């Protein structure tokens, strides 16, 4: 087990090398001059050259890359051209918000999706199955910008149940930062007002985001359950008098979950990277909005930082997925 983890983590080095190399050179061949964006449109050539020099943009690309990687090794992501802040600071500010949103959406998708999947499999071709399919397909085929707006119209404007934007009210102080996840931090510090308020802000965007992921979970669970339930060992178990929840959860679901976890793990990665639209609609101060603004500004260091965080996230999630296999299927352990 330890060996696997160590091996996978060492692979991370190569992944990072590849990611930085490709993103760096790709973003530098795009025409456009970040120094120009920074000095404003009317600056003269001398000012422009000076800023270029300050940013190191007057150096050959490979020198810039080398400098960048050298900084990266000591945890320095460089200075954002747009915000003029160390990119590491910006990522620390914005990443937890995205993580909080994605995690919550993920949990909702699992908690709602798995039972619907099981139900659909067990009650195959009945009204339950069709209903489950309708619900989940509706989710995956409704674009987030639309379901989000409808959500806001209904739950904010008509019913007044939820706020329409932000992580917390202007009048409520944010909890002291521990993890950066407001709900968790306020819980840890016992700040109940912030807890209720941030949770209340989280629900609508998280539901919207999870709605789109639900179908993936539901359909996958249903398909694997159907497959597993048809297998001989289930029949043997039934013959041995094992039935009900025990059969369903301990014997069938456990095996059905293996392929599901792969799909779900990847979908969590896309949740992280793809929360952009949800974040925009709900004014959620996450990385999505930050990186979109950065791209428009040709803010290389920020784009690189974002890409690195997301790729590391992907690798770690994949690792977790593989480790979960080990827990679920002892055979793989050998």
């Amino acid at each position, binding site marked *: 087990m330890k060996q696997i983890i160590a091996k996978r983590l060492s692979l991370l080095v190569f992944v990072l090398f590849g990611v930085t190399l490709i993103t760096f050179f790709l973003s530098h061949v*795009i025409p456009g001059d970040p120094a120009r964006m920074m000095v*404003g449109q009317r600056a003269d050539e001398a000012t422009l050259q000076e800023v270029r020099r300050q940013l190191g943009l007057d150096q050959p690309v490979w020198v810039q890359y080398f400098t960048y990687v050298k900084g990266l090794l000591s945890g320095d992501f460089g200075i954002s051209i747009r*915000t003029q802040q160390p990119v590491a600071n910006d990522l620390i500010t914005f990443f937890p918000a995205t993580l909080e949103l994605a995690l919550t959406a993920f949990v909702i998708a699992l908690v709602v999706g798995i039972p619907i999947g099981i139900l659909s499999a067990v009650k195959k071709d009945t009204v339950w199955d069709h209903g489950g399919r309708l619900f989940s397909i509706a989710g995956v085929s409704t674009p987030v910008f639309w379901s989000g707006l409808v959500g806001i119209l209904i739950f904010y404007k008509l019913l007044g149940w939820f706020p329409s934007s932000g992580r917390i*009210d202007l009048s409520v102080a944010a909890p002291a930062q521990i993890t950066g996840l407001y709900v968790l931090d306020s819980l840890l510090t016992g700040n109940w007002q912030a807890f209720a*308020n941030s949770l209340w802000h989280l629900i609508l965007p998280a539901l919207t985001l999870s709605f789109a992921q639900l179908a993936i979970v539901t359909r996958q669970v249903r398909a694997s359950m159907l497959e597993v339930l048809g297998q001989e060992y289930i029949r043997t178990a039934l013959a041995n008098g094992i039935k009900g929840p025990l059969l369903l959860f301990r014997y069938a679901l456990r095996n059905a979950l293996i392929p599901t976890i792969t799909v779900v793990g990847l979908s969590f990665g896309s949740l992280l990277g793809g929360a952009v639209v949800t974040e925009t609609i709900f004014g959620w101060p996450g990385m999505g909005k930050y990186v979109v603004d950065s791209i428009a500004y040709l803010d290389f260091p920020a784009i690189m930082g974002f890409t690195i965080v997301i790729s590391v996230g992907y690798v770690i999630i994949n690792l977790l997925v593989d480790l979960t296999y080990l827990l679920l299927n002892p055979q793989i352990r050998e």
Partner: protein
Amino acid sequence: MLHLPLSLILVLALALTACSSSTSQPQTDSQPEQQTQTQEPSASSTPSDTLVVAITSDQGTLDPAVTMDNAAWKITYPTYQRLVEYDGSSTEVKPGLAKEWQVSEDGLEWTFTLNEGFKFADGTPVTAEAVKFTFDRTLAIKKGPYDVYSVIKEVKVNSPTSVTFVLSKNFPPFLSTLAANYGGIVNPKVKEKEQNGDLGQNYLANNTMGSGPYQLEEWKKGQYFKLTPNPHYPNQPALKTVYFKIIADPTAQRLQLEQGEVDIAEGIPVEQLTAMGNADNIELLQNPSLLVDYVYINTSRGHEALKDKRVRQALSYAIDYQALTEAVQQGYATQMRGPIPKGLWGHDESAFQYSYDVEKAKALLAEAGVTNLELNLLYSDNKPWWETEALTLQAFFAEIGVKLNLNKVAYATSREMMDKGEFDLCLGVWSPDFADPYMFMNYWFDSNNFGLSGNRAFYKNDRVDQLVRQAATINDQAERIKLYQQAQQIVIDEAPYIYLYQKDSLLPVSKQVKGYVYNPMLEGIYNLAEMSK
């Protein structure tokens, strides 16, 4: 298999409890709270000493010596003071930190006498030393604003209340540049915040250290800016808290404005604004702005035919300006009359204005011997209306037999191409940083400014060069107007740009907000100190 239905019920029950534990519980938890929330805004909106302005995106650095982004000015302008300030809604300046000033005969020495009694937010008095410190700092940092102030040779402190700027050449718009954001006077104590010789840039990127009526109390990245009064400011403002709340989505902004959760919403597009005008509690403020929208015709590096002024004139005659502003800006715009917009001194109400005349346009093309002309139009997604504008122009040019190919690229790419002159026609906007026709005439037409810095038509005319350069060296306004008008006549006739329209500023504001004054030089900036609710 017989027992499955029973297990199913269990699963279902499990699913339901799981659902409810994840979703409905917090709902009930926060029920009482959300009620106070929705009542508070809709009844009396935000408290009467609190103003909430919805803005569309977060800002970059707030350092006045670095930022060239007008969007950051809404935070920095009320938190710093300048030697001179724009006067109400006019583009003229009035005393600010300085109570009076003199300029030497040759225009090279500007001496300012400071008002006493102004203090930075930490209580440090504003002195001539602070003024010198500010400009020395900007010149040492050498970023965007350096360009404007590179004309300063030296700043001399004569006494604690008197300071002299020595310029390297006569620069008549100098006074007006002092009223712009980069003229904000910075507390010299920023030196204590210096890191690795950055002259406090890192600190001022996120904090304010000025003597304006407000100070930045908190900036929650991606969420809001919170301004509170500078305790040492002589006349304490009525609004005790001002929030600039970041709401990227226009629909969310509109809903929150309608619900009274925000008082001013900046990011609602013009189509939605007209629909909103009917809401009882909201007023739509419409003012002519100095933002102009125009087309650069590449007169020397583009299509060969564009070197002929008759072809450029033909393009200017091909457009139905009325229909264009209707299609693109819902009519909230005015056709330009020459390069200097209405509202800025130097504007010539009697200048020639092109009108829609297809026959004339065709005749001009025939006279120039041009047939089957095919041009490309460069633009980006930077302005939401450019797509419609490009299509409208394409249709108009088709009527005179000119084929327009649309070339839409990313914003940063478009700027690179503009700078190098890789286009035939290109859409652009321009707004002045300081209130002087110099902003238009010298930037747009001086052949020293080829490319992004201003002369985006790559236009060169020796007579025009001579006129605008001369106008930039004398201080007599009447004399300068004369010179600029002569230059305008030429550049209107030679049509290196298609002068489209100047946009109206449209701002939906809650009717409870009082005292807001629009100044075309301060687009998107609020006179917070005089406002109330």
